[in-house]
Structure formats: structure tokens, C-alpha cells
């Protein structure tokens, strides 16, 4: 990679760390959320530089959307922390600090001391297909069936956890007009 690309990569790395630290330093929930978004976007751009273009762009996409939604919930639930008033985002300082430093030391040791193997041969021409076949291989049918099962489980979980179900809306006999504080757009 060229010098410009190298410099850009390192700058993005520093930006990601600083933005992440800013999450705990700023005085406002909205600013904390978007500092986190900046950090994620910087990491996504770094992943782009690692030639993983799809993963990088998808990281940017998902993280920005998540931060947009998260800002709503942060503002809604962090009741006593108004915008731009001094507030503290850290809890349980000593334990957190110990855990963070410990994890960093373990990971750094792993990165520096492990004997990483050298590459044998070169990647196959259609890497995605080869990877897919190696991972899923003879179990393709299972993989195909698992996805709808997972979706069904998620939907079922949400329905079971919902506070207001169709019996609350329609009454016990499930007939008549629904009793909603605000009617939806499809007329159900």
C-alpha cells in the first residue's frame, strides 16, 4: 500500500480511539452517541483499507443506523442526564479499569508473542464460493433451513414478550374493531 494509504489508516485508527474515549467525556447523550458513531465509521473505513470492502461498507451502514436509533433510546431512558449538563458516564470505576487493562494486556501479549504461520499457496480464484463450500459443505440444507427457523424464533419471542397482544386489541372473542390509541395505516 502506498504511503498515503498507510497514513490514512493510522489517522483513522487514532480517530477511532479518540472518538471512543470521547463517548465518556462529553456532556450530552446525543454527543456520546454520535462520538461512538464516528468511532465505528473510522473502524469501517479502516476495514476498507484492509481490502474487505463489503465488510467495511456494511459496518458503516449498520453502525450509523444503529446509532441513529440508539440516540433516541439514550435520550429517552437516561432521564436525569440532560443535554450539555455535566454528567458522568462511568460506573464501577475500579473494576472496569482493572478489566480493561487486563484484557488489553492479554490481547497485546497474544498479538506480539504468538507465532503466526506463513501463507501456503494463494487464495483460490473464487474465494467466496470456496469459503462457503468449506464452511458449509455437505450441510447446505441445514444452513438453508436454519435461517427461517431463526427468524421464526425471533418473531415468536417478540410476540410472547409483547405487553399488548391481539386479545388486548380486539377483546377475548377477537372480533370487532381494534381498540388502538392511534390507528395504523393498513386498517387492521
Amino acid at each position, binding site marked *: 500500500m502506498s504511503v498515503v494509504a498507510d497514513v490514512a489508516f493510522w489517522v483513522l485508527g487514532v480517530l477511532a480511539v479518540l472518538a471512543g474515549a470521547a463517548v465518556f467525556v462529553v456532556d450530552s447523550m446525543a454527543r456520546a452517541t454520535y462520538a461512538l458513531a464516528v468511532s465505528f465509521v473510522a473502524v469501517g473505513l479502516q476495514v476498507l483499507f484492509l481490502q474487505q470492502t463489503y465488510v467495511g461498507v456494511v459496518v458503516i451502514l449498520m453502525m450509523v443506523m444503529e446509532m441513529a436509533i440508539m440516540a433516541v433510546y439514550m435520550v429517552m431512558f437516561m432521564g436525569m442526564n440532560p443535554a450539555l449538563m455535566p454528567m458522568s458516564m*462511568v*460506573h464501577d470505576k475500579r473494576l472496569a479499569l482493572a478489566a480493561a487493562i487486563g484484557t488489553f494486556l492479554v490481547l497485546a501479549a497474544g498479538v506480539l508473542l504468538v507465532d503466526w504461520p506463513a501463507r501456503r499457496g494463494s487464495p483460490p480464484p473464487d474465494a467466496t464460493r470456496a469459503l462457503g463450500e468449506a464452511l458449509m459443505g455437505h450441510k447446505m440444507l441445514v444452513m438453508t433451513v436454519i435461517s427461517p427457523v431463526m427468524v421464526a424464533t425471533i418473531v415468536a419471542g417478540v410476540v410472547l414478550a409483547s405487553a399488548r397482544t391481539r386479545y388486548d386489541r380486539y377483546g377475548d372473542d377477537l372480533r370487532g374493531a381494534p381498540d388502538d390509541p392511534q390507528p395504523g395505516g393498513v386498517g387492521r
Partner: protein
Amino acid sequence: MDHGDMDMDMDMDMDMSPGGIALAKGGPDRDGLEMDVLHVPLGPVLPYWPAGLVLHCTLHGDVIAAAEAEVLAPGPDEADQADEVSATGAVRSLDNVVSLLALAGWDAAAAEARRVRDDLLDGDGHAAERLQRLDRRVRRSVILRWSLRRLAPLGPDDLSARDLPAGLAGDTYDRLLAMLDRAGRGGLAPLQPFPVSALPDLVVGLDLAAARLVVAGLDLHELDPGRTKAQEESHA
């Protein structure tokens, strides 16, 4: 969230007020959550809003949880001028049609309704057929019907309980069609004054957009302030 080890360097002084505005207090909302309470007055001067009407809303987010309506009385000189306004009931209804269409975001139809209203005021002969065209256009719109359906439906019992005229029956879409109808029968006198004390009941529980559509759909020609709080207290 574990508050035990949390560093309480947050100023827990209850007089926090950034910029001089006090912080919002919490209150239970319609879903049982505790939401911040915001006091927002709508009016007395807003585009597409009956002049002089002030609706003091208590908002949870953008849902109106409580409201109080009052009318700002005109000043001493304006009271004489008010009698000289000669706009007929038809023109006033059309004015409210303009408001409702503009609030529903349909600029083209609102502009057309405005032209028809100007034509009616000028006594132009083509106003009637233009109004017919507008009426047909409004009736054809699926999106407008979808937006305004089931918004503040009023049955005959609701109307009689709140002492409202029978012409306001149905939901906002029905009231829009009734307004256009009334505009078509030119030369009518303005409708009787609307009692503003009935207004809060109609808008509580709706969000701001829906509430403004409902108020615009009520075809308010004149407002009856009723007895103010001071008058009620002095009578009690």
C-alpha cells in the same frame, strides 16, 4: 444500572436550568412509561390556525396529554372592525379548506382552493365550476382519505354531549367534504361560534400533526371563549 459505585459528580441540585430554562419534569404517559413533560402553547398566531386561539398543550414527546384552550380577545379598536368583516360562511369554509389541505401537505390542491376562495370573494362567475373541480379532485385522492380517516370521529351522541353543531359528525375526512359542500352553497351566514371549552377533549391523545388536522377540520368560523377562569371563579 448499578448506582452503588457510580461516581456522583453529577450535580443533583434540583435547580438545574441550562440557559435559564428549567428542566422538564417527568410524568406517566399513555403507555405507562415516565416521559418528560413539555408545555407548548399552540397559537395565537400560526399559519393555518384560527387567529386568536391559544391551545396550551402538555406534551409527552409529540403526543398531547392535556390541553387548555383560550381565546385572546381582540383589542378595543379591533372590536369595532370585526363587525365590518363581510366574508360569508361559504368563503370562511373555503378558507378552512385551504388550511386543512395545506396542513395535509397537498400544496397544489391548497393553492387551487385559495384561488377559488379569492374568486368567491371577488364575485367571479367561474368560482362555482372551479369549486366543483376542486371538490372532484379532493374526492378522488386516495392518500388524503387515508390520512384523514378515523381522525377524531364524532358520533351524534358525542356532539350532543359536548354541545356541538350536528354538521361536525363523522371523522375529519367527512368534515372536509362537508366544508366543501358548505362552500358550494354560497351566500350562507357564518356558522355559530364554536365553544373552545370543547376543543381540548377532541385533541387529547393525538399527536401534534393529527391535532392540527382536527382543529383545521372543525371549520371554525368564530370562537366562543365561553366563561374565562376568572369569571367562573367569581361566579362560584
